[in-house]
């Protein structure tokens, strides 16, 4: 199973094209919030942008926290989401250690499903859909060139 990674975020220009693509193509919305990948600015010592997205925990604490089976572990890391089972309790977002799950005003969760549809919309090639093993290496070396 492939995993979405962000190996070259130092190239990010903050255009939000990835978030907008996810919202548009996966969730059928116009938004920079209701998306599996979200861009925030990082001020202070390291200037630039950070991506908030699922880092494909295996097993996933959000799946463990979900009381209704809406979130379940995905093979290779991350989660499979069944929105029709979700009761909008928000426990998934609370359990995520890296703030990867966005809850909209109604409490509906949005998390990356590692489909990779955002990748081609990044103008600077910051994103990559990688094999699970590569993804862990990539996540630990953010900013470096990933082996392609």
């Amino acid at each position, binding site marked *: 199973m492939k995993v979405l990674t962000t190996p070259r975020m130092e190239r990010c220009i903050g255009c939000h*094209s990835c978030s907008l693509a996810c919202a548009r193509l996966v969730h059928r919305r116009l938004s920079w*919030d209701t998306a599996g990948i979200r*861009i925030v600015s990082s001020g202070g010592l390291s200037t630039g942008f950070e991506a908030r997205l699922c880092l494909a925990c295996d097993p996933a604490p959000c799946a463990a926290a979900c009381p209704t089976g809406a979130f379940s572990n995905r093979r290779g890391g991350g989660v499979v989401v069944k929105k029709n089972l979700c009761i909008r309790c928000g426990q998934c977002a609370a359990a995520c250690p890296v703030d990867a799950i966005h809850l909209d005003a109604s409490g509906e969760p949005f998390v990356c499903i590692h489909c990779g549809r955002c990748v081609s919309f990044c103008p600077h090639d910051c994103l990559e859909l990688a094999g699970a093993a590569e993804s862990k290496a990539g996540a630990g070396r953010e900013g470096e060139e990933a082996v392609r």
Partner: protein
Amino acid sequence: MIRDHFRVLVADLDAGKGKIELVGGREEVAGGSGLAALLFNRYGAPERPWNDPPQPIVFAIGPLTGYFPLMSKTVCAFKSPYHDQYTESHAGGRSALALRFADLDALVITGRAPRPSCLSVGSRRFEVSDVEFMWGLDVHAAGKLLRRMFPGSGHRSIFRIGPAGENGAAMACVNADTYRHFGRLGGGAAMGAKNLKGVVILGDRASQLPETKDYPKLFKEVYRKVTSTDMMSKYHNLGTAANLQVLNELKSLPWRNLKETADPGIEGVSGERFAADTLLRNVACAGCPVGCIHIGFVREKFLAENRYLYRQVAYDYEPIYSTGTMLGVTDCFQVLALMDVTEKAGLDVMSAGVALAWATEALERGLVSERETMVPLRFGDPGPYQQALGFLGKGANDFYRLLARGTLRAAERYGGADFACVLGQEMAGYATGEVFFASQALGFRHSHLDTGGYSYDQQHREKDAAGAVDFLMRDEEARVFLTSMVACLFARGVYTDDLLADCLRSVGYAALGERMGEISRGVQRLRWRTRMATGFDPSAVAIPERFRKVVNWKGPIDAAYLDALRREYARRIRELAGEGPPAPAASGDLPQG
């Protein structure tokens, strides 16, 4: 968010309250420029002065904002402290998408806060906060505090003013998200007059997209056009700074208060030089994959023992021209340092540089002395300019306070109007010829982006005033539709009429696309009528003598042709404003829900 009306938040700073109003007129004015004029007519008082507390500041987006790439700009409209007439200023950053995701077509700010304040709005947020402690802080310091005080990092837009705006300087800008600006014609002072130090717009709401497959397909096609073809490469590569070398070669780059139009010193301040020596990174407006914002750095040794600080400064063609070539400064790092001071003061960099160029020549000629300028301004010497920019922002003495109201104001008192480089406001960096000079002097925003006058100069040698003005009127009409969408005008080569109509149709605004010509002519007329209702007389526009002395690659300026253009353009503007049905301003209220 696709709706046949406008959803407008009207913030009353006197009361500290807001009201959502549903306003009709979508089919007539579309949004952006059209909506801003509509709302100014609804909430403004043309005959009252710019700093009358009820006068509105309008921030408006358009029907395509956020839906397509480069639909990423916001129109800010207000009565300008520069000429006390209606105007627009445009900026990007995250402002447009933040308004879209706050579920607002426009934000209108009226009244005057009793104390220095910040307005914070979102789809579920309205707050007027006391920020008395922030008054007097520079743009960067205020920005840092505002970021800490309000939520939504990366998904919000932060506007703020510096000391120049607080002091009522007619060349004070509104800084948007650190690297972009509602720069020209004094929006910063319009905010300052309202005791408004900052505005934070939180984009915290999503909306459903049309169910059709057309929209994502068309999005992909437009995205490909703006990223995969060379249509946008100028902005992507060296950025607008690429123009420096080009215009210098054409002998059309203003140097030293437009005494010259080319100089070998270009080597130190060309786009190539900035990219090679100073460029740190690029950033983008939200919703634009081009990323035309070029950020350089200034490095400053503050202690002898190798202690340095550095700052990041966004550069573009116009700021390099105004603080570089116009002041004769030919070192890229020194130019960035001047931009940095200007930024912190909250001044419009184009106006400030051009004003100091005039002050330098006025000092050379003995019209003013160092008693006025406080420092020995001299072309090519950045140190005194760095101080002078601070004086201009602070309003350090009578001279700088007057100069900050406009170069011609200072010239009225001290003399030197003949060499003031003013075309409606301090000139943009194009000494391309008669058509550009007439177009900026009379253009609606007095901006080089009102029309393509500078490119007409480059493509035409014949001196046909009626033909040139025909072009200006048609070009303005086309651009008005784009600024009603609200597109970045850098994308004007991508968004043809057919493509715009397809985009509008794909998201549910087919009628706007079908009536494009009618709408743009209507908005063009509405803007001019609004401007004239606030006192603009196109026949009274004068073009200073300095412009008649310019020599560029075509040879000397033809003063008779310039006058013919000025008269003809003024006539056509008056004719346009006078024709057609009444403005739609008073009609179209909807039941408030």
